[in-house]
């Protein structure tokens, strides 16, 4: 099905007869509410309705349409509706009650100006507020739902393979957002290769709670099933995180077979689903849970197996993929139906010499690394040293990628050149062994918290402005957490010494404000906030706050 398509407009879910699966396009699950079903013909009618309104709003081919909606079906209809009229849609996080509206509006304003956004689609409540701030048109849901008043939509637009289909925005916290521009051809190449590798077939059903503005949610948890024409069982990330059993209810009710999850979700599910919420549910229909978006931990898989073995989860169902928005999605995938390969290597040799030396399991200093599998067809990887030369097998270096599903570029950012000699340098460190990729960390200070990429500088800038914190005397870093299966965010800030001793009310206030400001202005929470006396933080010889050294110092102080 996918191979024959020339553009994403020929999606299986839009055909009443084509595609792999049956009549169901999407089932939407929500805690405490009945499920919503959408057949393919209903899905098509909705998408056409939205396309008709966009046409009436004078949206033209090539126009950038930002969808900043609470995750629901409307975002999906709008996304496909925009593509049908030749516009370039991009999903964006919406304003939630936890976020600071002023900061969110600043970011939106910047996005609209830099990327020349033509139209923003959002909720009815938020549309007037946003409309006052941005120099482009903003419409709420009510406008889009009037499609039946507009008249019949006839799809006539035919994009070329090279045309930009949509943008994926990098999940940065604050500051400039980079729009990853992907062509129809690149996306179709990715979907074709990836479907082949995971053995996608007409009996597959995708179950997903992932946010649609994230590459894993957008490609694997949305485009792949709808383009292939297999059912998508969807839920909101906000709902799932509070009620994690919902995922298993979706798998059980719709005989789910495929599910992509970031590593923390294995821990969250294993630790926080109550027995009562799992009663009577089965996961025997599953083919693959694919761990993706953050470093994979063998312990997380073990925890998941131990907890859900009783309802049918088996080791062979636990796969891994290494993916990034710049390659549309997957770079590698482990083989379905086989246990993931584990590499037991010497930690010291890995960290100090950059060599993955095999050692016996259980030996002192041994560490287990989980394979990410082999590159998917059409994608090549190589490991390079700091001058860009390929290194030998089992030598650690930066992961470089070249493929037929790469980004066309960063949207309206000719200053950012993604390629070096045709290769995209990922910033991730890893090694190759017998053709399989093992990712061991990042070249940069990036923190990956629950699948979200966080730049410590962004959080430091927020904390710096909290009254009582000594400006410029803040450090933020990530620490791996066994229990959560992800990196947690640590804030260490210098304050007046007397606050630490006597004035507990003020200390509490600063602590509270730091946590509150981080939550309101970024999309993450600070797990640890440690206030320290002046001159506690270590500096480099050039006078900068030394992130790594302070991390070590903090970890020692916790012991």
């Amino acid at each position, binding site marked *: 099905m996918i191979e024959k398509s020339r553009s994403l407009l020929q999606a299986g879910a839009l055909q009443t007869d084509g595609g792999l699966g049956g009549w169901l396009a999407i089932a939407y699950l929500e805690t405490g509410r009945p499920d919503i079903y959408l057949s393919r013909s209903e899905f098509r009618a909705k998408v056409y309705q939205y396309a008709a309104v966009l046409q009436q709003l004078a949206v033209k081919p090539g126009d950038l349409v930002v969808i900043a909606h609470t995750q629901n079906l409307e975002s999906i209809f709008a996304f496909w509706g925009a593509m049908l009229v030749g516009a370039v849609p991009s999903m964006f996080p919406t304003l939630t*009650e*936890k976020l600071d509206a002023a900061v969110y509006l600043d970011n939106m304003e910047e996005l609209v100006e830099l990327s020349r956004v033509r139209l923003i689609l959002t909720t009815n409540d938020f549309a007037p507020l946003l409309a006052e701030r941005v120099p482009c048109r903003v419409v709420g849901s009510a406008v889009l739902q009037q499609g039946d008043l507009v008249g019949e939509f006839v799809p006539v637009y035919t994009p070329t393979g090279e045309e930009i289909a949509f943008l994926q925005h990098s999940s940065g916290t604050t500051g400039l957002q980079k729009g990853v521009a992907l062509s129809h051809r690149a996306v179709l190449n990715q979907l074709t290769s990836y479907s082949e590798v995971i053995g996608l077939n007409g009996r597959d059903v995708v179950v997903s709670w992932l946010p649609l503005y994230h590459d894993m949610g957008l490609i694997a948890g949305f485009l792949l099933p709808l383009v292939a024409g297999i059912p998508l069982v969807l839920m909101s990330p906000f709902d799932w995180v509070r009620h994690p059993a919902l995922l298993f209810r979706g798998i059980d009710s719709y005989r789910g077979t495929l599910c992509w999850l970031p590593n923390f979700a294995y821990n969250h599910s294993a630790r926080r689903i109550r027995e009562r919420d799992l009663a009577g549910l089965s996961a025997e229909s599953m083919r693959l849970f694919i761990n993706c978006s953050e470093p994979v931990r063998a312990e997380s898989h073990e925890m998941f197996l131990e907890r859900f073995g009783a309802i049918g989860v088996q080791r062979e169902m636990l796969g891994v993929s290494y993916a990034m928005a710049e390659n549309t999605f997957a770079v590698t995938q482990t083989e379905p139906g086989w246990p993931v390969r584990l590499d037991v290597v010497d930690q010291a040799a890995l960290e100090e010499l950059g060599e993955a030396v095999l050692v016996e399991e259980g030996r002192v200093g041994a560490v287990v690394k989980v394979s990410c599998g082999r590159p998917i067809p059409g994608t090549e990887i190589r490991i390079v040293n700091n001058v860009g030369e390929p290194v030998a097998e089992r030598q650690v270096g930066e992961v470089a990628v070249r493929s037929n599903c790469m980004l066309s570029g960063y949207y309206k950012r000719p200053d950012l050149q993604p390629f070096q000699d045709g290769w995209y340098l990922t910033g991730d460190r890893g090694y190759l062994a017998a053709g399989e990729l093992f990712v061991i960390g990042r070249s940069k200070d990036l923190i990956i918290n629950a699948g979200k990429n966080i730049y410590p500088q962004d959080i430091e800038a927020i904390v710096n402005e909290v009254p009582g914190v000594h400006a410029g005397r803040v450090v933020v870093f990530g620490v791996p957490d066994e229990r959560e299966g992800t990196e947690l965010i640590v804030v260490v800030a210098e304050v007046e010494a007397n606050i630490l001793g006597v004035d507990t009310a003020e200390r509490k206030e600063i602590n509270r404000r730091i946590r509150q400001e981080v939550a309101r202005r970024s999309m993450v929470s600070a797990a640890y906030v440690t206030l320290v006396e002046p001159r506690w933080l270590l500096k480099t010889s050039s006078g900068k706050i030394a992130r790594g050294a302070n991390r070590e110092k903090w970890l020692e102080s916790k012991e």
Partner: protein
Amino acid sequence: MDEQEVKEKLRRFITAELIRDESYELEDDEGIITGGLMDSFALAELGVYVEDEFGVYIPDPDLTVDKMNTLNQMTARVMAGRGM
């Protein structure tokens, strides 16, 4: 166990396990989730703890930010569950 004991147990659990700072003086009506003190995952963790510790099962539709944002709200919900 009376209401005050339930509240103190919850307070200790939240500061030690969810805020990860036992010295934090959590007030009874402080917005724990809206104030950014804990992540929304913590609601699921709280559901597990309340069932293990107090034998009270709070169904998913009640585990929401609106209904479980403060220590007072959580305590009242546990007490209501124990009364049933």
